[in-house]
């Protein structure tokens, strides 16, 4: 898995690339006039290979979510460049970025918060389609049902509220909504945290299937290296706003250089069994 991908990477240009990305947040000490800066991203050089599953790992506060926000065009970096499809987009205005938005989609960690409880499951999936195109009610509903099936949700649940679904089902719903606009890049920001092991494995399987079926590029952000190591083609490790290690998964897992990677590897979990079972049993 590693060598193939590495070879492909050498040949194809990266889907998305950052050079020297920096971002700082200003925070005020409570009850005083002083403020201090938190460096969320420091000189980040990062590449996402097309058609591959890249993992971004690090402990909390390492800057993973900030990088994800910048890549998803939710926030602007303070310094550096972001390249997407051959364009440098870090300073583009909102209007210029608008046509790019459908191509990069973000799935959040908190599925309950990311889905409007007043909407039904089908309405949630229809929303991006409704915003971007003007199709008839029936066409939208049909598309929603297709997408539900694709992510492994029963279309009978089209009218259920997200509150009536389990955590894993909600994430599937969030993923279905995210792929509705046929993005080139899907970013999942800690979307697996809070799910139990077998559900995590099921979602990972789903991502692999989607990646294959739609030639989707996936960026998976997590704090759990051993988990994502199972499915990722490339891994990057972040620590205190910097990328301290990157390369193909095999490389990183086998010969980790940075002590931080070692720390992450140390918390190995018995995932293999669950993973293999899920794979064997098909969709769950």
């Amino acid at each position, binding site marked *: 898995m590693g060598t193939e991908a590495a070879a492909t990477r050498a040949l194809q240009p990266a889907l998305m690339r950052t050079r020297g990305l920096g971002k700082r947040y200003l925070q*005020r000490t*409570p*009850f*005083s*006039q002083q403020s201090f800066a938190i460096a969320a991203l420091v000189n980040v050089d990062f590449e996402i290979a097309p058609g591959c599953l890249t993992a971004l790992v690090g402990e909390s506060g390492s800057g993973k979510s900030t990088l994800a926000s910048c890549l998803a065009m939710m926030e602007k970096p303070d310094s550096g460049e972001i390249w997407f499809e051959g364009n440098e987009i870090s300073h583009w205005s909102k209007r210029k970025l608008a046509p790019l938005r459908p191509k990069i989609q973000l799935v959040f960690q908190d599925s309950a918060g990311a889905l409007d409880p007043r909407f039904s499951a089908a309405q949630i999936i229809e929303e991006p389609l409704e915003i971007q195109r003007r199709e008839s009610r029936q066409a939208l509903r049909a598309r929603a049902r297709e997408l539900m099936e694709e992510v492994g949700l029963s279309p009978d649940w089209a009218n259920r509220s997200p509150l009536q679904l389990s955590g894993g089902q909600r994430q599937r719903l969030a993923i279905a909504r995210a792929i509705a606009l046929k993005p080139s890049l899907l970013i999942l920001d800690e979307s697996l945290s809070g799910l139990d092991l077998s559900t995590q494995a099921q979602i990972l399987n789903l991502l692999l299937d989607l990646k294959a079926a739609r030639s989707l590029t996936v960026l998976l952000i997590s704090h759990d290296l051993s988990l994502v190591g199972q499915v990722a083609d490339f891994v990057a490790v972040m620590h205190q706003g910097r990328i301290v290690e990157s390369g193909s998964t095999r490389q990183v897992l086998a010969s980790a250089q940075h002590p931080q990677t070692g720390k992450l590897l140390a918390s190995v979990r018995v995932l293999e069994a669950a993973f293999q079972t899920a794979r064997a049993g098909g969709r769950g």
Partner: protein
Amino acid sequence: MMPSMTSGVKSPIRYLERRAIHALLLLLGASLLSFLFSSLAPGSFFDEMKLNPQISPETVAALRAQYGLDQPLPVRYVRWVKSVFRGEWGYSFAYNQPVRSLLMVRARNTLLLTTLAMALAWLIAVPIGVWIASRRGRWDDQLASASTSLLLSVPELVLALGLLYLVIRTHALPVGGMVSTGFDRLGSWEKVRDLAAHLIVPVTTLVLASLPILIRHVRASMMEVLQAPFIQAARGHGIGRSRLLFCYALPAAANPLISLFGLSVAGLLSGSLLVEVITGWPGLGPLLLEACFSRDIYVVIGVVMASTMFMILGSLLADVMLLVADPRIRTDHA
């Protein structure tokens, strides 16, 4: 007027200074607004005179010029501000005297009425609210809730008229005005009794009108506090019910109530206007009403400013009480 959380001011004095400046700005804004409105109004005090065929238009024009009513707005405003600093606060056409002396007397009367009503209302509301909070769901709580709802539905206007009717029919009290005729001839003790007798109807109306809301807020605040762990702990220590309620729970519940106090000054002022007019109590209310009808512009502006000042004072008083009552505010921030 919520305290700002992000400033670096640490001393309560500085805090009060800032609020005082805020208050002055508010007064300035109110005066500007009043003047702006007055410029929109067609007609003036002398319109009635214009209709009188015996008074020539030249006389009316001369009168207007004399009082400066023909000047443009900014000039009039500056003249009024100067008048304020001179201590006159503008001039009343109807009473033919500076507004200040008029206002002082009336304001004193209104203050007497409202402070008395406020004190009584709180004195009654707090014990009732505290008691029924502890009796949540039982018959006396339900009775209190039903009665406050009913009382809340009766507008002040109706309360005032109703009380007046009762008092007149039963000939229980002297009605109308602040004092009876021949007041000056009474001995000092009789004077107090006479004043008190005249106060009963207006004060009762105001108290009855404010009670429902106050009781509700006290009850709500207390119920929240009674859920807190430290109350359970105190109960576990065997502290008696009344002590528990009044010495432990009430101080903790005081914070939102003090803020309510600041806000309720405004409501009480509005209510007192009505009550004063209906019972004939010579306060700011009847003065404002008269001035509205006769277009006595500077009196109207003066009364609006006076009432704004009362509110600001009420608010400031509430801030001071908060500072004293809530130790958290003192140490943390301003």
